[in-house]
């Protein structure tokens, strides 16, 4: 971006130089020199106009990428991305929260060690709910926090945590970072000035990009965290 600004500054400087030069040069009474013959000039101009018209035809055949488009402006006031996640800590799960991958394991022992299959820092939030019964089933659910950037809903592209049980250890595999690169059409300022939306209003609004792992465990099962940076939050504790 800074290189772009520097380039623009240089361009403006060149334009000013060009302008000054023209003012001095054009002020002489000498007749102007024609750069091209009229015929060549006509050819250049019509070729450019033809190119612009071809551009319109080609544009009409560009298919737009299909993305879930959310009319974000309508519920702009009421939208609070973290509210629904806050409620999960109390064990209340909003029906509207999107669900990622789910896992179910049968487990009979009294203790279960939780570890991460990643050397780096584990950034996932884990919420554990103890069931009322000892049904010997562990249920893991990835909840995806609503993530909207510039009117595009990315919630479903949030990667889920993978899980497996090996012996007495629940191994959590944090997913690799998902890289999303998108090209978006932006209305020119000569248009956006008269259409009521402001381009900058929507950017980044509602971005969270995180998932939460919700684990339901049998009543008497004890979870032991083998890594310091895995923080386990127990519902209603």
């Amino acid at each position, binding site marked *: 971006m800074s290189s772009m600004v520097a380039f623009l500054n240089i361009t403006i400087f060149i334009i000013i130089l060009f302008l000054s030069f023209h*003012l001095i040069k054009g*002020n002489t009474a000498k007749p102007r020199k024609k750069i091209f013959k009229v015929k060549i000039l006509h050819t250049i101009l019509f070729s450019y106009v033809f190119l612009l018209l071809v551009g*319109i035809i080609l544009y009409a055949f560009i298919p737009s*990428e299909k993305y879930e488009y959310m009319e974000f402006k309508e519920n702009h006031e009421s939208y609070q991305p973290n509210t629904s996640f806050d409620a999960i800590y109390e064990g209340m799960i909003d029906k509207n929260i999107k669900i990622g991958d789910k896992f179910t394991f049968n487990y009979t022992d009294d203790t279960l060690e939780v570890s991460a299959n990643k050397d780096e820092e584990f950034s996932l939030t884990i919420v554990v709910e103890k069931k009322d019964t000892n049904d010997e089933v562990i249920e893991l659910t990835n909840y995806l926090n609503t993530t909207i950037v510039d009117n595009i809903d990315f919630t479903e592209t949030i990667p889920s945590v993978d899980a497996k049980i090996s012996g007495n250890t629940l191994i959590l595999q944090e997913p690799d970072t998902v*890289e*999303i*690169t998108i090209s978006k*059409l932006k209305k*020119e300022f000569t248009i956006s000035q008269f259409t009521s939306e402001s381009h900058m209003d929507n950017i980044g609004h509602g971005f969270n990009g995180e998932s939460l792992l919700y684990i339901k465990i049998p009543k008497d099962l004890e979870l032991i965290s083998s890594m310091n940076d895995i923080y386990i939050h127990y519902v209603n504790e």
Partner: protein
Amino acid sequence: MFLAKPTTVSVIKKQYKYKSKAYLDVYFSLVVLQVISILLSFAGANSMGVGTPTMNINITYFSVDIVIVFTMIWGFITAIQLTTKNYRNDDFSFVTNRVNSNISNGLFLLTASIIAGITAMLSTFLQKSVLYYIGGTNFIADMSLFDYAKQIIIGIGSGILYVLLFCALGYVVGTLVQLHKSFTFIIPASFFGILFIIESLGLYDLRTYLFEFLFSEPSFVIFTLKILSIVAVVFTCATLMSNKLEVR
């Protein structure tokens, strides 16, 4: 004594026709400038990135804002060029006066603004087509071609008005410089001086008002009236000032 007495309208018409053909060079510089700015626009108007440990999102926005801005600068320079002695002397091929000469210049600049405004906005389709078919870029558009085309019409209208405004400003600057060479330094010095005074006195509301007066006007009709009023005042000033210029 002549048998046929030329009327004002016929003189202006002749001058306009002559200028439309003789000043064809200005459109060549327009094409060159627009092609350069279209090439620059391939880098994207701006981009943004947000990220968490699990997700990085980068969005690059594409528009032809730079083409429109370059076209406005072109309008400014072209209008200054018209006021130079080199171009001014062409008018003496006809039986004319300064007022007629200025009106025909105004009509020529109006035509140039219309052509420049249309081509600048239409370049948006060329930009997207090149990016998609040659660059392999996939776009996300939150409107159909038909909806965008409807908005392009507004864009063309306001683009023409912006270019016309800069033509008018260039014309009055050029006329001032022709009155006295010292204006070459006085005008930019005054411009930056006023900006400096506004900043140093903390008159931010005035600065915002001046900016929003045109660039944030949401009503197209009021915007048109504002631009046309400014252009009319500026051209009248230029015409009155040019009457003080020496005869060839």
